């Protein structure tokens, strides 16, 4: 009995139970093999459901379970660290025809994956917000904002944040910041252009240069407010 034959039968319920597996008295193992089939499929489906509760809610638990079976055959975990398994789900959903009409679903999955990553990200201490407020404008423009490892920004062509929250919004684009004040990640709304701006801060650009390409009417105060309330700024250094 090879692991390969065992695994193939495990992942394909339509295949017969491998020979050489026996129940008491030496009869074929039969339904006893299904215990393993069930453990693998159900435990991985449950793990995916815990990881992507909003996706599961949006498509319903029955559809989600069927979808999870397809996904785990295409993208089985490549490590026993299941906490981050599913990073491929958003991209896979883009090409999964049964959810083609739910155009927002991949971005809701991206938001949930960002929240999981933030939960397990390295710890960091936020700055006192007064440090930012104390800087005169010309020095502020030369300052680099160091962001916490948990902080990440997303831009969606859909109202992904509102949908994730369980609302039924009008069609619009939404941008968001995922951050982790303390131990519980949060998703905060960002104004238009905010996600790209936060990405530029993450790359290490000083605030003035990160502002250069922003759209007219960019709401810098709203972005800084989100970064502060998400405790996402860990240091300030002035570029020379």
């Amino acid at each position: 009995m090879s692991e390969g034959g065992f695994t193939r039968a495990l992942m394909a319920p339509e295949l017969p139970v491998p020979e050489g597996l026996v129940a008491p008295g030496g009869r074929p193992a039969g339904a006893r093999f299904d215990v393993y089939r069930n453990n693998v499929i159900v435990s991985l489906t449950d793990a995916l459901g815990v990881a992507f509760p909003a996706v599961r809610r949006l498509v319903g638990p029955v559809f989600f379970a069927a979808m999870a079976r397809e996904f785990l055959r295409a993208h089985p975990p490549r490590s026993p660290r299941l906490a981050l398994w599913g990073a491929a789900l958003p991209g896979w959903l883009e090409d999964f025809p049964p959810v083609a009409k739910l155009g927002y679903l991949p971005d809701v999955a991206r938001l949930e994956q960002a929240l999981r990553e933030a939960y397990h990200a390295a710890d960091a201490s936020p700055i006192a917000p007064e440090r930012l407020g104390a800087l005169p404008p010309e020095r502020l423009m030369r300052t680099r904002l160091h962001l916490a490892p948990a902080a990440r920004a997303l831009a969606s062509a859909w109202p992904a944040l509102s949908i994730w929250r369980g609302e039924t919004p009008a069609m619009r684009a939404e941008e968001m910041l995922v951050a982790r004040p303390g131990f519980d990640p949060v998703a905060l709304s960002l104004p238009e252009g905010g996600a790209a701006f936060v990405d530029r801060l993450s790359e290490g650009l000083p605030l003035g240069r990160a502002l250069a390409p922003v759209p007219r009417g960019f709401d810098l105060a709203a972005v800084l407010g989100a970064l502060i309330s998400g405790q996402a700024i860990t240091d300030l250094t002035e570029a020379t």
Partner: protein
Amino acid sequence: MTDRPASELPPRPGVGFKSKHFEALTHDPGAVAWIEIHAENYMGDGGRPLAQLDALARRFPVSVHGVGLSIGGEAPLSREHLARLRRLVDRVKPASFSEHLAWSTHEGSYLNDLLPLPYTRATLQRVTDHVAEVQDALGRRMLLENPSNYLAFAESEMDEIAFLSGIAEATGCGLLLDVNNVHVSAVNQQVPAEAYIDAFPMGLVGEIHLGGHDAQEDETGAPLLIDSHGAEVADPVWRLYARALARGGPKPTLIEWDTDVPDWPVLEAEAARAAAILDRERAPA
């Protein structure tokens, strides 16, 4: 490898740690003297899991229990996973490290279940090599746990106890005796569990596991027990536990409850029940 015992856990009850029990454990652990964690849940960079673990490790002896090494697998052990385990062990400095006689990864895909292997001379050599590699990588002795069996392999050449004893003899590892697994396997294979307990090399046992199971039937109506860790420890398992302690003396004893995790008082009551049996065994005759 050092000459230290494979387990430095106290011969008292412990529980599998769940985040929802953090407050209870830090305020009034009751009968609970140590905790066990599933290693793979503590391999992030930071956040609540590691913060809670660090706080508990200052107060309790910790058992790190791996579920993903695939020690029984055909493939070489994952160097990356061994390195992650090493980092965790260095951080927590656990009183014990244990893993399963099972495989869970095939061609790099992790199947998230403890899958069975035949007991042959070839698989004995393979598992022995893997256990030795784990002990070298972690710089410590480990405990190897007996599995719960739903079926058997026609090609097996020896029984499970001979297989486990052979690995322990060749590597110096200790054994983790899961009494619920003994009961589940015995019922499923229609053999007496008492004979397994009576034949088990208790001197090698560094830890005992107790947990709940589900009862089903197979397609012929024969009983089929499933190791679910989702219920109270069953009465026949408590009896087997007392029988094992009567042979081997008090051992560190874990209450495992991983699905439908109950509120703290229910879990603590299970630990208290184990404590009463341990105390009886300790009392002078």
